[in-house]
């Protein structure tokens, strides 16, 4: 059972991080802490993408002074690059929304920010 656990350790880490991020997003009341939970879930998804493209005893897919052996899959790493940049853009916009909400309402408690108009 433990050897099975050690064999797929990156995927178990991904599951733990997703559940932790979801718990933070659903149970905190401060807006900035909810955004931290979202960032945790995005990191977990990036780790999952990179862990999918690994072969046993492989090296990075770069030909400059490469040691012998099979190479890891390069397409998945390109997908992860795009995903990280989109995560940065989303976090920047959400944080600026949080700042403007605080300036208007005077509080960062989401149970007090309920008015849809005005």
């Amino acid at each position, binding site marked *: 059972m433990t050897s099975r656990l050690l064999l797929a350790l990156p995927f178990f880490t991904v599951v733990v991080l997703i559940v932790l991020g979801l718990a933070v997003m659903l149970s905190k009341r401060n807006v900035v802490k909810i955004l931290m939970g979202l960032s945790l879930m995005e990191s977990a998804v990036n780790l999952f993408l990179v862990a999918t493209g690994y072969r046993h005893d492989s090296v990075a897919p770069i*030909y*400059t002074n*490469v040691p012998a052996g099979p190479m890891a899959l390069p397409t998945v790493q390109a997908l992860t690059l795009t995903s990280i940049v989109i995560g940065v853009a989303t976090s920047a916009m959400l*944080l*600026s929304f949080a700042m403007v909400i605080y300036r208007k309402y005077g509080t960062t408690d989401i149970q007090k920010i309920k008015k849809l108009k005005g």
Partner: protein
Amino acid sequence: MKMTKIVRTTADLFFPFCLVFGLYVVVHGHLTPGGGFQGGAVMATGTALLLVARAYDDVTGRIRKGAMKVCEAAGLLIFLCAGFSGLFAGRPFMANWIARDGALFRTAIAHGPNAGDLNTAGLLPLLNFGVGIEVLGGLTVILLYMLSGIKEEKKK
């Protein structure tokens, strides 16, 4: 209140090294791990170091918002023009026409593992440079806008 003199001097000392290392990562994007987005993020980290160590009014004398906006727009324009130049050379949009029959960056490389040569890979160093400049400008402009938002609130 200000940061101590040691912090401000160390940040001033580190800033050019961060820029040089970021440019190294951008320019060698087709030989070593790295490229446009990673090198641009390293350069923006150097700028953020300067923003953390000094007050807002000290920094905007050196890193102006207008200059960073020009950097960002110029980066995206370089990317688009390099893409359209493939159309003028008679090949599809954003095709790597320099690697076949252009003048710059056209040394062919041997197959298999080799020590890298900077003079290869056609259109790729140009695209890397454009994206690096755009990420530096974009992240710095985001940081400057957020800092000016805090300052205006404190003034009220």
